[in-house]
């Protein structure tokens, strides 16, 4: 058969013949059918969801929505905005995040060892500790905040407690994993010099895990600064409460201003944390 050099040289008969000889190459393979089915089901689901969740409402914006949109871009009476409260709120948010992360790290330092396979051999105890930590982690920080607001009242104390408890769960687990992943040889080396258990931990384990601990805690400090804003929205102190207050007072332009400040704050924290990492951990992270 003479080679086909151009597209136009192909006849219908030829196309049909090639097709029957190589059906898969024409997109009829089982694999491509499955792929089409998968995409189709995604679109069918989305169509269902659009109806079920009444997405049509997006196109009928209420009075409120229009007012909101207008106010977001037109900032009025900026002198009356009570900046002192805003920056006090930001300071409070920072304080909450810092204290909560710090205290959780202290506790995790101890509990992390209790939950590590190579430190505590007694399985039952270790597993119980782990399950309790799972519960602390499993309940979202925001839910803890809600509970603590109920228990101790509105204000930053509830926020600190929420961050504290939920981070004990996460940090302890991460710390214990770091401890389980250490290089045994270093520990053996220290032990072979005659050091007792405490000194073994101090010189054999801690130098290896402290950088990891610090790195994790810094990461959570960043993350908690972000989430502390949300905690305030449910009453647990910080800038979130200011946001709600201004929102309820329909001062939407001020809400936008506060949010911008929060975004800047988060960017600053990211930068500081990167500097600290480079200095103390020697990481060149992003």
């Amino acid at each position, binding site marked *: 058969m003479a080679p086909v050099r151009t597209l136009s040289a192909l006849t219908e008969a030829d196309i049909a013949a090639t097709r029957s000889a190589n059906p898969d190459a024409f997109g009829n393979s089982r694999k491509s059918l499955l*792929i089409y089915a*998968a995409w189709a089901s*995604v679109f069918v*689901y*989305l169509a269902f*969801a659009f109806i*079920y*969740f*009444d*997405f049509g*409402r*997006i196109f009928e*914006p*209420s009075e*409120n*929505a229009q007012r*909101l949109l207008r106010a977001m871009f037109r900032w009025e009476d900026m002198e009356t905005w009570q900046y002192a409260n805003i920056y006090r709120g930001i*300071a*409070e948010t*920072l*304080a*909450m995040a*810092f*204290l909560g992360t*710090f205290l959780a790290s202290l506790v995790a330092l101890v509990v992390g060892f209790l939950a590590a396979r190579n430190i505590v051999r007694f399985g039952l105890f270790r597993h119980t500790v782990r399950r309790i930590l*799972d*519960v602390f982690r*499993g*309940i*979202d920080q*925001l*839910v803890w905040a*809600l*509970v*603590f607001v*109920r*228990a*101790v009242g509105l*204000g*930053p*104390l509830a*926020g*600190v*407690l929420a961050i504290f408890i939920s981070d004990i769960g996460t940090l302890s687990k991460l710390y214990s994993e770091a401890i389980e992943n250490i290089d045994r040889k270093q520990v053996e080396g220290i032990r072979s010099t005659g050091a007792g258990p405490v000194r073994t931990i101090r010189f054999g384990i801690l130098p290896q895990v402290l950088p990891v601990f610090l790195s994790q805690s810094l990461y959570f400090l960043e993350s908690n600064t*972000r*989430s502390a*804003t*949300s905690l305030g*929205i*449910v009453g647990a*102190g910080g800038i*979130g409460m200011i*946001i*709600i207050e201004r*929102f309820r007072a329909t001062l939407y332009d001020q809400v936008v201003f506060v*949010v911008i400040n*929060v*975004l800047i704050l*988060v960017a600053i924290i990211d930068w500081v944390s990167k500097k600290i990492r480079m200095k103390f951990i020697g990481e060149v992270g*992003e």
Partner: protein
Amino acid sequence: MAVTTTPLTETGHPQDPVSIYEKHRTDLQRAKLGQNILFLLLFFGMLIFSIVTSQFYPERLAQAASRVFEYFGTIMPNLQWDLLFEGRDEQGRAVEGSLTFWYTDLDKYLSLIWETILMAITATLLGTAGALALCFAGSRNLMKNSWIYFFARRFMEICRGVPEILIALIFVFAFGIGPLAGILAVAIHTAGALGKLFAEVNENVSRRPIDGIRGVGGNWFEQMRYGVLPQVLPNFVSYGLLRFEINVRASSIIGFVGAGGIGQELNRVISFYSDDRVLAVLVLVVITVTLIDLLSERLRLYFIGKEQL
């Protein structure tokens, strides 16, 4: 062994190795001392400031602790071993002390949990679509135009940076109470977070297939679709599944501001009742999130070896 200072030579150099080491060590320590003191001062300053600002004083703490325990006492269900599995009696009333009594509103809770999961699926799908639309423009190696790159990145940062619950609050205000607001809020946050992750994956692709598509006359979109997408898709799917896990969690609490799902119910029982209903809903939420986490991990491991789309 006592260490004595060695007499210096005429040129002023200490002589034996030990004192050389000691001098070196003190020099290093002194150099770092300034920095370390500064850092310690900052740290303690921050600590004191935090304690004062949040009024984290011992008396308040003690008070708080006792009130916390008190609260947990009130939300504990009154379960009795012998009555645990008792069903309803002839009049259809549940027996106090049984699980059935504790979970009287189980059908309502389950339908809300189902709604929450649907919210998470929808939000993840929409958010991923948004992330796909933004991530190529937000990749330094793929987008030559600095302005487009800059705005794509900033837009994704805003979507990530504004707290989900705040976005949800705004949408509840604009479109009314219900899951729609929640889905939109989670979707927007997902587009930002996932978009950034996707862009980072994009920045590590091989240029060869892209050059191949350039060579046949493909435009930027075709270079992305044929040259980049096949390389990154497995990673994208993995991140997408992870995001779904996170979004189930997010969807279950977004209801606090009226944006639907089990969160709305949780907020209602916490605010209005201080009884075992709170724990009932809480336990259900934790179980759901844990199950979804496990399921999603299974799915991710399954896809790691597989051919994709």
